[in-house]
């Protein structure tokens, strides 16, 4: 039941948004909600409001681009700053949904990871999709995606993201594809067949999830014994005392962005907000609140070793990691999602 709460929250929010639109001087910042948003409030929203005396109206969504596109098309943009994943950003940038950024108003480009600087989006953290398991229900620890597929050794349900992205990649790795070659294989027809065939093996044992908050709940309640999950959400559950563990082998990492929809009304405040987000001090606070890696190189150097070891950017964690291939998903996303839907509905 909890897993569906986010959908309901979203509906409540949608109703709320209608009334919020009127507040002019405030800055509306939309994120993905949950523990991630709480960390953003502490690390970015609060310092920003303190400094500029501009209040922030918080909102959350699940990354659907339709609402933003409709706002931009109707020239009635009520969202000022939006958190966006990288394929959506790339698409939105080309199609005129997001503004081209003026980096002179944000900070020195050299202070940041190269992958964080995009034409229309400012990358502010590095996150990862990992294999997580409940150490209370599994006596032997799984170590890789092959173990995720091993129903004999690890009986029980598995959680996976309901979609092609971050599902097909794992299937291929479980089938023995090297991390570096995942997208090359997935780019071929035979590779796609191979991934779906591998998924067939565990299909009846998969519990699909949609919102990032679900996997820790499913794991904690014992509904699934292991799951793909966002590393930050698992860490938050660990802090609440849940005995959940992360396997970093074959994780997929990506940068998350803030972007401004074309026709944003609070442009000045929005840029000030991005500058606040880019500051090393604030990013340090963010990474200690939720273990997502900072994009500011100076912040990376300041983070204590214990915290740094839990980040996707830690060398040990990044060793067998796959960088999510944005252009691959921009290109093949729709086709593979359609194929995935057809497969899942059967």
């Amino acid at each position, binding site marked *: *039941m909890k897993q*569906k709460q986010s*959908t*309901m929250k979203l*509906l409540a929010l949608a109703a709320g948004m209608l009334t919020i639109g009127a507040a002019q001087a405030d800055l509306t910042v939309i994120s993905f909600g949950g523990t991630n948003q709480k960390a953003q409030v502490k690390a970015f929203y609060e310092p920003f409001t303190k400094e500029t005396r501009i209040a922030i109206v918080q909102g959350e969504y699940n990354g*659907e*681009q*339709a*609402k933003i*596109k409709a706002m931009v098309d109707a020239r009635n943009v009520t969202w000022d700053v939006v958190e966006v994943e990288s394929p959506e950003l790339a*698409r939105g940038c*080309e*199609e*005129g949904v997001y503004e081209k950024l003026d980096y002179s108003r944000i900070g020195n480009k050299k202070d940041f990871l190269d992958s964080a600087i995009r034409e229309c989006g400012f990358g502010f953290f590095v996150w990862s999709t990992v294999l997580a398991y409940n150490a209370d229900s599994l006596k032997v620890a799984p170590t890789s995606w092959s173990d995720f597929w091993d129903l004999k050794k690890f009986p029980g349900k598995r959680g996976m993201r*309901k979609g092609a992205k971050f599902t097909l990649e794992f299937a291929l790795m479980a089938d023995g594809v090297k991390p570096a070659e995942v997208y090359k294989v997935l780019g071929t027809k035979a590779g796609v067949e191979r991934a*779906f065939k591998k998924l067939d093996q565990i299909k009846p044992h998969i*519990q*699909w999830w949609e919102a990032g908050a679900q996997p820790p709940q499913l794991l904690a*309640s014992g*509904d699934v014994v292991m799951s793909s999950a966002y590393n930050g959400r698992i860490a938050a559950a660990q802090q609440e005392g849940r005995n959940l563990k992360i396997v970093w082998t074959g994780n997929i990492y990506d940068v998350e962005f803030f972007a401004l929809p074309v026709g944003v009304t609070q442009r000045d405040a929005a840029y000030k907000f991005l500058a606040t987000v880019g500051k090393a001090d604030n990013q340090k606070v963010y990474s200690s609140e939720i273990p997502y890696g900072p994009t500011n190189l100076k912040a990376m150097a300041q983070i204590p070793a214990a915290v740094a070891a839990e980040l996707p950017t830690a060398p040990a964690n990044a060793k067998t990691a796959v960088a999510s291939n944005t*252009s691959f998903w*921009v*290109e*093949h*996303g*729709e*086709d593979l*999602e*359609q*194929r995935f*839907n*057809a*497969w*899942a*509905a*059967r």
Partner: protein
Amino acid sequence: MSAKAIGEAVSGAPSETATPLKTQLRRAERLKKLKYGALIAPLALFLLLTFLWPIGALLMRSIENPEVPEALPQTLRALAGWDRQALPGEDAYAALVADLTENKGSRTLAVAAKRMNMEEPGFRSLFMNTARKLPLEPGVDAREGLLEIDSQWGELGTWQLIARNGRAYTDYFLLAAVDLYRDGAGNIVQADPSASIFVDIFVRTFWMSLIVTVWCVVLGYPVAYLLATQSSRVSNLLMIFVLLPFWTSILVRVAAWIVLLQQGGLINMGLISLGIIDQPLQLVFNRIGVYIAMVHILLPFMILPLYSVMKGISPTYLRAAVSLGCPPFKSYWKVYFPMTIPGLAAGGLLVFIISMGYYITPALLGSPKEQMASYFVAFYTNETTNWGMAAALSAVLLLATLILYFVYNRLVGSATSGARPR
């Protein structure tokens, strides 16, 4: 006033006017019609603006295809007389280079590239990368230059796809909504089974709606009968039990069902503590959970029309039948039941049509195997922002519902007209 005068006033102008009575009557009728028309005009206008026009605009989206003609006008002009059998001539290549150079980095090109990528994954980058590398150096031949950038420009399929999208309207989305597509030569063919989904989804939508309707009849009929036959004090109280859930938000009721039905939920725990089952039953996130919640939510739509019809059936009919020697069950079946058919028909149609568009209940209580057509409309609207596809699916759903409605009307409508109690 004399009787004669009154008679003349009533019959209108007497014989001295030339207009025959028929014309006068027609004129009076016309005036009356105009008056009625003026009275309903505001509502008709309102419906037109808020209902018919948006639906029309939505349906138009499923055939609109402006992206490619906007981005590649010169190329399409060069391809106008092309037979699509062999690669086009030099002028088409030159026109394409001109179009791409002109629209380099523009939104127009990105949207056109996205549109073509829907049909053939890989076309987005083909267009975007090619445009990025243009203009060609002076003196370089257009065909050779393009082939140098990407060998796909030398493939027939690439050009067929551009030509196919050359008009402002397309049947691509509507065909895709029933698992069909056009191949390179323009023939309609069946989609690959691994990517076929929508025919199954529509069949599933109908099937699930049918099951829900049948259950609503089975459960709703006795309740409506009870309501209609009890004294008003009792029936009012019972009516509150029907209406209270009816007035509660659907989301609240769905959430409540999740609480009740889940593995550690009230129903499973109760059954286990009573010793009826050992292992919790899987009652939610599958077909059973969706059926339970949908039947619960839609029951009032069956009960209320049935109740209003049953309320109008006088008990004397039944008494008369029994007093004439008809056995109780037979008299019920032969006399009472036929008179409730209009209620059953109205309730059944309501429940069935509402079920066809159900979205939130299967989305929250079902697995991917329970999703109905609306889920995919939402998917294409929100997640992939492919509004053409969303509109096409809606159009197919609307059409199927209308056809069904007419068939239903034929079958039930003729049956009910004879059985109307009043």
